[in-house]
């Protein structure tokens, strides 16, 4: 599903963000990637989305070698991955419905299918009533749910969540994590980048700990072990 073989990524300005990382995430797994700022977590997400190219090493996602994917095939690759960000990244001038429908329009889904699928996703994240609201009218937790619905609407096989609870209070954070767990139970591989110790420890999932661009530990049913 996701395979990294001896991957390094250096930026032109400073020291390497990721150094010789190798890891394998199987289909249907739920994985936390933890670590402090500068540990390379976000670089890893960007490499998986092919927003960045590795300096060396190979990355395989859904069986495809990302080094050999042509530029025009990148959209197709990204459509197989749902992505959720800490700052939600919703389109501010569109309402909840249009934000989710947008992801479907991008892949040229017929309008009649969009009309069925979007309400279903809104129901899944518990926002069926708020489909007409604009992002600024929603709480942080609600905005993250919309982002989650948008990430899932195209039925991706992998969901990448980059600090999905970073801007949320504990209650909303738990609700989002419960949703992610539900999604994972449906067969979607979920990779959550976070530094929320409480959640990681309570979820009892696989935990990959990163520090300064290298993997410190990879525990099957782990806890947030790194102390800065």
């Amino acid at each position, binding site marked *: 599903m996701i395979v990294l073989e001896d991957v390094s990524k250096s930026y032109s300005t400073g020291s390497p963000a990721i150094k010789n990382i190798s890891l394998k995430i199987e289909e249907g797994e739920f994985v936390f990637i933890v670590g402090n700022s500068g540990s390379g977590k976000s670089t890893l997400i960007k490499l998986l989305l092919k927003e960045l190219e590795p300096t060396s090493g190979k990355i395989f996602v859904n069986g495809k070698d990302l080094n050999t994917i042509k530029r025009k095939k990148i*959209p197709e690759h990204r459509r197989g991955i749902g*992505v959720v960000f800490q700052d939600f990244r919703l*389109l501010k*001038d569109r309402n909840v419905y249009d934000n989710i429908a947008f992801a479907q329009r991008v892949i*040229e889904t017929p309008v009649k299918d969009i009309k069925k699928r979007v309400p279903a996703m809104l129901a899944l994240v518990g926002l069926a009533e708020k489909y007409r609201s604009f992002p600024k009218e929603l709480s942080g937790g609600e905005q993250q749910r919309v982002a989650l619905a948008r990430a899932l609407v195209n039925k991706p096989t992998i969901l990448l969540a980059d600090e999905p609870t970073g801007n949320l209070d504990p209650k909303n954070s738990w609700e989002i994590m419960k949703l992610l767990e539900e999604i994972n139970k449906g067969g979607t591989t979920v990779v959550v980048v976070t530094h929320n110790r409480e959640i990681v420890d309570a979820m009892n999932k696989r935990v990959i700990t990163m520090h300064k661009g290298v993997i410190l530990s990879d525990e099957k049913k782990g806890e947030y072990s790194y102390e800065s």
Partner: protein
Amino acid sequence: MKVSTLAYSCGQGIKNIKRNKLFSLASVGTITACIFLIGLFYIIIANFQYLVKEAEDSVCITVFFDDDITEKRIQEIGEQLGNREEVSEIKYTSADEAWADYKERYFAEEPDLAEGFRDDNPLAGSSNYEIYLKDLKMQDAFVTYLKTISGIRKVNYSENTANTLTDFAKVVGYVSISIIVILFAVGIFLISNTVMIGITVRKEEIRIMKLIGATDIFVRLPFVIEGVIIGLIGAILPIIALVLIYQKVIVYLMTQFQSFTSIVTFISVRQIFSVVIPMALLIGAGIGLIGSKITIRKHLKV
């Protein structure tokens, strides 16, 4: 691309214009100014060229014949010349017609004086062809050709007038093309800057689109449609202004400067705007299309 996607992109393009009213207005203003200048310049140049063409058309070559030439040979030469590709018109004036014309002009008040020449036409050797060419540039070569024809005694032509007019037309042509190209480039630069401000505001939106799997064309199309619509609106406004101004100016010149307008003619509104309207619309759409395409290109590298 599906029709529904195209319709969606058109809708988004129109929404973008509404959402960014200020940028849209600035872009429309920029294009309007550019196209107004291009249109104005074109109209002035076209009228100049029209004047030059009128002057060129009135320039002719006159050929005179040997004294012992027969009427049949004159007719043969006429047919030979009339069939030439470069000749637009050929007019024959016999010696008798030339004398009759001369009499009418100079002896109209004293016809008795002319009577003395009744049986001895003083213009006996002046039967001639007046030849008008389609393009004055061909004059030199054509005169050389005329001199090779047997039976032709003399060829009258004005080398200076032809060369001056041809050179003037050339200069006017080059200058007009240069200025239109410069204004077009300035238009693209200005619209590109204006679109860039609009795109910078929506950089995050473009990034989100790309990260959820939008193709370059899906991201680009609404911006391109927005650019083309702005370009077309920016073209329609100066067209209206130019039509109104051109009509007013012609009427003003005709009434205020009658002596001037008796020698100078203007291209009709219908004739000149049959070129200006499609040209302005094409330039407007072109500036919008190229400007937005160039600007968005670097933002697509996500």
